[in-house]
């Protein structure tokens, strides 16, 4: 007995020793300041903003040699963010230019931010999609106060200020991936992302390469493919882009829709009904399998297409290009570049994605503003997103960048630290320019669809607060639709599909869709007026 205890003790001691020695050995993890102390007990205190005696005086002009960059804690609320830390030649260059070095933490779980907020332990900067949560005077400092104070020369586009303003009249971020209509028009090479449909080129040619000008033509192609290749599924739907492509063809929008000046919730649009009925017809004609609606992972569906199980695939406008690149040349894909119906239209209501929020606990607002100012500037975010001008990229005379490195190779991106640290500050146009490629399938479709896009971010600004009765109604309706729409898609006949759709409308009525619309309309008038006044 004693012997056994001794061996167990020995085993434990060995494990403990190896554990502490491994924990103590500090590999340079990119963050300078990794302590080599023993891995147990008292944690090394967070190195907050070090030397506060910063010469933060010089604004735009390159600061005098920055010896002690200000460290700011930056939390990125996106679990999938490909960059884990602030390392690489590009981030270093940014630090040199701003004398700020962010200490990055990427979220591993969606609840982390909420926990931070509720407990009051906020970092200096928060990068998050959660506009409603962070645009709150209790949590963040408003841009319209800190910028005039520390960087009065910065002037944001008034439309951008507008779409980020909340009910207390302040704006707490200028979110990324947004550009004004004027910006889009001024950059003919920037094409907004739209849903896309890609087809296998070889099979298309097998069935005679017919012109596809309407949904009817598309159906005919699917039928021909089905006959020639019965083992193949004519159409595979990307789980995240199931109906979007067809919605666009019918002119159906999501969220709130402006119909003759008044807002209705998308379910009430006739175009949505038509689009769903079309999905149903796809199923009834055997162009789409029912199992497709159970898939959740788009890499799975992509693989199916790449291994030859499907003829057509729904995704974004970079569909064909992506498939061609990922498939390594086994098959070639082409986009259906032109809209397939005169009704086709897309209304862009987006107001932006990621925002960089300066929290109330921020230790060094001046440095933060300096940092943000640089990243918002053309020079700054281009450095972050594209790299060094000249060595990494050059601006083509037509107005788009040409890269000297492969922007699709994640390894290169990681090593240089380029692209993802520019993303939080990229404009919609900027993001589109990054992916421009002359003659590519993406561009071919982008050019065609530019013609059917119109802008109305005023709608995008209408968003109920968390826990408000309107938000509850909206969530209930959306959840219900997600559950019930499959009944429409898989109905055995058009009549029954219609009936299922009516059922959905009835349920939505019971849930209070009218109240939701009324609430939205009460806000729409003011927003639309203000937006129009800024853009005329």
């Amino acid at each position, binding site marked *: 007995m004693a012997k056994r205890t001794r061996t167990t003790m020995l085993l434990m001691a060995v494990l403990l020793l190896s554990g502490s020695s491994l924990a103590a050995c500090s590999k340079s993890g990119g963050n300078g300041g990794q302590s080599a102390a023993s891995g147990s007990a008292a*944690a090394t205190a967070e190195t907050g903003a070090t030397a506060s005696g910063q010469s933060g005086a010089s604004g735009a002009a390159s600061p005098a040699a920055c010896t002690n960059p200000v460290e700011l804690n930056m939390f990125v609320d996106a679990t999938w963010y*490909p960059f884990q830390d602030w390392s690489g030649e590009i981030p270093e260059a940014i630090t040199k230019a701003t004398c700020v070095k962010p200490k990055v933490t990427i979220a591993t779980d969606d609840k982390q931010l909420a926990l931070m907020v*509720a407990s009051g332990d906020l970092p200096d900067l928060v990068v998050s999609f959660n506009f409603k949560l962070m645009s709150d005077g209790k949590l963040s400092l408003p841009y319209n106060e800190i910028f005039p104070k520390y960087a009065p020369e910065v002037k944001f586009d008034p439309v951008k200020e507008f779409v980020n303003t909340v009910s207390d009249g302040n704006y707490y971020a200028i979110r990324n991936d947004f550009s004004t209509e004027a910006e889009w028009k001024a950059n003919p090479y920037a094409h907004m992302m739209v849903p896309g449909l890609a087809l296998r080129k070889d099979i298309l040619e097998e069935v005679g390469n017919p012109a596809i000008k309407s949904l009817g033509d598309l159906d005919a192609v699917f039928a021909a493919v089905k006959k020639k290749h019965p083992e193949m599924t004519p159409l595979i739907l990307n789980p995240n882009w199931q109906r979007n492509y067809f919605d666009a063809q019918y002119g159906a929008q999501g969220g709130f829709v402006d119909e003759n000046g008044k807002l209705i919730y998308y379910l009430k649009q006739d175009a949505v009904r038509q689009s769903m009925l079309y999905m149903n017809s796809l199923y009834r004609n055997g162009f789409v399998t029912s199992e497709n609606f159970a898939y959740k992972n788009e890499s799975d569906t992509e693989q199916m297409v790449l291994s030859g199980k499907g003829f057509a695939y729904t995704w974004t406008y970079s569909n064909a290009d992506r498939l061609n690149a990922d498939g390594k040349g086994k098959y070639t894909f082409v986009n259906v570049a032109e809209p397939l119906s005169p009704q086709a239209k897309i209304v862009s209501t987006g107001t932006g994605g990621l925002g960089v929020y300066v929290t109330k606990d921020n230790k060094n607002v001046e440095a933060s503003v300096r940092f943000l100012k640089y990243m918002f500037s053309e020079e700054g975010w281009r450095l972050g997103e594209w790299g060094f001008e000249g060595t990494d990229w050059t601006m083509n005379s037509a107005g788009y960048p040409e890269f000297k490195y492969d922007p699709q190779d994640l390894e290169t991106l990681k090593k240089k630290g380029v692209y993802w640290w520019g993303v939080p500050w990229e404009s919609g146009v900027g993001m589109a320019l990054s992916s421009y490629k002359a003659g590519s399938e993406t561009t071919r479709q982008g050019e065609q669809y530019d013609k059917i896009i119109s802008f109305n971010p005023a709608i995008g600004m209408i968003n109920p607060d968390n826990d408000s009765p309107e938000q509850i109604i909206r969530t209930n309706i959306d959840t219900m639709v997600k559950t019930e729409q499959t009944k429409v898609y898989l109905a055995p006949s058009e009549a029954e599909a219609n009936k299922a759709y009516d059922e959905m409308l009835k349920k939505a009525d019971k849930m209070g869709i009218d109240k939701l619309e009324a609430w939205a309309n009460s806000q729409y008038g003011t927003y639309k007026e203000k937006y129009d006044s800024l853009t005329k």
Partner: protein
Amino acid sequence: MALRRKKTFEDWSLDTFIFIALLLIVAVTLYPFYYILLITFNAGTDTTNGGMYFWPRDFTLANYNYFLSEPKWIRALGMSLLRTVVGTALGVLFTSLVAYGLAKKELIFRNGYFMIILFAMNFSGGLIAYYVVLRSIGLINTFGVYVIPGMLNLFFLLIAISFFRDIPEELAESARIDGASELRIFARIMLPVSMPLLATMCLFIGSGHWNAWLDSAYFVQNEGLRTLTYRMMQVINQTMVPSGDAASSSMSRTHVTPFSIQATAMVVSIIPILGVYPFLQKHFVSGMMLGSVKG
């Protein structure tokens, strides 16, 4: 000593039945596991095509490379080891100590304690309140947050109590008569007798610590304190970049899919457990050996 006995028909049929049943169980359990192993050695993108069952179709070490290319792993591994050892030791000792006390019928407020235990098992004040409590004790962002809250494992507390209750009183009685203190009785008699229970607790609590990552996510900001499983979650999360972003296409270039990476993470984390398990297994297999017929 060994009873010599002919194998009866009953013996035979029972043995055969059990044998077949066990064989089925092994097949059903082992094959999917083998399949998982296959996946880790197969290119993720190829696996999605299905149809691969016995041998990797597109052999690759890319899945493992994807993990091991992270330099911070060594430290995280060390942290996990440390945490598991300390946490398990504390947990098992503390819980069994408390259980022993609660097993005694003479304990005052015994029913009260039980009420508290049951209440705590079922109710929780929620994540936010928990965080606040941890913060006020000063455990946030320290190593302690890994091992201290888990010291009393309520589930095992209840199981251990019932175990201790089953131990015949005479064992303790005779020792008491000989003048041994309660602590001595506990250490010298109770613990050794309950080896199977302790071994089980070590296994369950230990694997719990080894696999835990949520507390590393929620309650720790110091990068040096991160555990291995936390790092794994980070890697897994990064495979799920939402599409529509130009650079996300670079993911599929690597032939790695979220599924193949998750499978790899799982295999990597199970290896230590497999390593430790044989040491614990003898504790609950040994008892049975004595009870069966020597053939």
